[in-house]
């Protein structure tokens, strides 16, 4: 099983040179730590910044400089600051190439649910609905199963949706999968020590297995 850091590390391999990227709260935020330094990419924060840098040194903490997760951050040289309308103009207009975000459920058609559990949890969708409706490439980072062992990869989502037919790839603690345009989770890679059988048993939606499934390696 992958740790959160390993999920982030694996997702970082999907990043391409020249991309503008929006990272969601949680595991997606960790992806920034693993993007190879020879790739020039720019991280966007939907509260109004292009060019997110690392967390600041204690002495440099600025309450007027936070990311979308409300964490204090720094800016890299070449950054630009803008308002929320401009920020979502970028997102909606397709200028942000890659969105990485968490999910509670993903369906085999690429639908995603991550903002509400009726009667229990209502945090709001934040920018997620805009991001999933707009980005060209969307990768979901999540645990394969919920805490009580239920598969989060489903035929159809049971929770209120965030967006439909939008997720392209999913990296869980067990596997890397992509959504088949005709429906289904195409298994691409297994986590170290995890069998295809285990992934099959923990995937409620249609799992597509073509040929030998390689095991991920980490240095």
């Amino acid at each position, binding site marked *: 099983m992958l740790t959160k850091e390993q999920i982030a590390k694996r997702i970082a391999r999907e990043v391409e040179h020249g991309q503008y990227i929006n990272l969601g709260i949680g595991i997606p935020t960790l992806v920034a730590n693993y993007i190879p330094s020879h790739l020039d990419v720019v991280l966007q*924060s*939907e*509260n*109004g*910044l292009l060019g997110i840098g*690392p*967390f*600041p*040194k*204690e002495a440099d*903490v*600025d*309450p*007027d*400089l*936070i*990311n*979308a*997760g*409300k*964490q*204090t*951050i720094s800016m890299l040289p070449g950054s630009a*600051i*803008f*308002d*929320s*309308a401009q*920020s*979502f*103009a970028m*997102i*909606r207009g397709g200028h942000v190439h890659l969105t990485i975000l968490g999910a509670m459920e993903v369906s085999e058609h690429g*639908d995603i649910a991550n903002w509400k559990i009726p*009667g*229990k*949890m*209502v*945090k*709001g*969708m*934040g*920018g*997620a*609905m*805009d991001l999933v*409706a*707009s980005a060209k490439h969307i990768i979901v980072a999540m645990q394969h199963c919920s805490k009580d062992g239920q598969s989060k990869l489903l035929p159809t989502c049971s929770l*209120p*949706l*965030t*967006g*439909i*037919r939008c997720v392209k790839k999913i990296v869980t603690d067990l596997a890397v999968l992509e959504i088949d345009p005709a429906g289904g989770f195409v298994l691409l890679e297994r986590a170290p020590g995890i069998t295809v059988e285990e992934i099959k048993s923990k995937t409620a939606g249609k799992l597509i297995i073509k040929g030998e499934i390689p095991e991920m390696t980490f240095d």
Partner: protein
Amino acid sequence: MILKTVKNAEEAVADISNGAMLMMGGFGLSGIPENCIAALLKKEVRDLTIVSNNAGVDDFGIGLFLQKRMVKKMISSYVGENDEFERQLLSGELEVELVPQGTLAERIRAGGAGIPAFFTPAGVGTEVAEGKEIREFNGKLYLMETGLTADFALVKAWKGDTAGNLIFKGTARNFNPMMATAGKITIAEVEELVPVGSLDPNAIHTPGIYVQRIFQGEKYEKRIEQRTVTA
């Protein structure tokens, strides 16, 4: 130039009364109008409808309005940092309209810009689309959202001049510039109020035409929600 200066927060919010619809700038606790919030708390106005991306935390920002039950309805995109909010919402004491963040930003911009409605892909196929017009453009589905204005917009800027021109700092800019355009009365509180002519016309974020009242705020706490640092 037309001068907009008022003495302080109390004077600025004096005519905000029960039932008013307010827009309040800020993202999380960053860039919120702290002085106006304090003045409104003192007034204890009630039945407010508040448009704000977030609802503060339990003991700061708009969270303080919720503690005092001053809010009838919130229009927000994310309210996850506020337990009292979630409690009032789940118990039905508080009316809430959750709006995707980009749609919220654009609705406010549209309201200020005289655009009554526009189409966005955000929310298609979700409960956000319920009751809204869906239309296809170039093979993709969009839903129609409407412009949003308010009786008052309360914004917080870094610097401002007495003609109402504003400059924001860092990510404390967020929703403030759009909201400034969408208030019938826009009240700006600034960390530093400077005389007309002190700001570079080329570097203004919000032109003074949008601002009806401006004052220099005091004792900004600028509370940090997630202090994350590198050793």
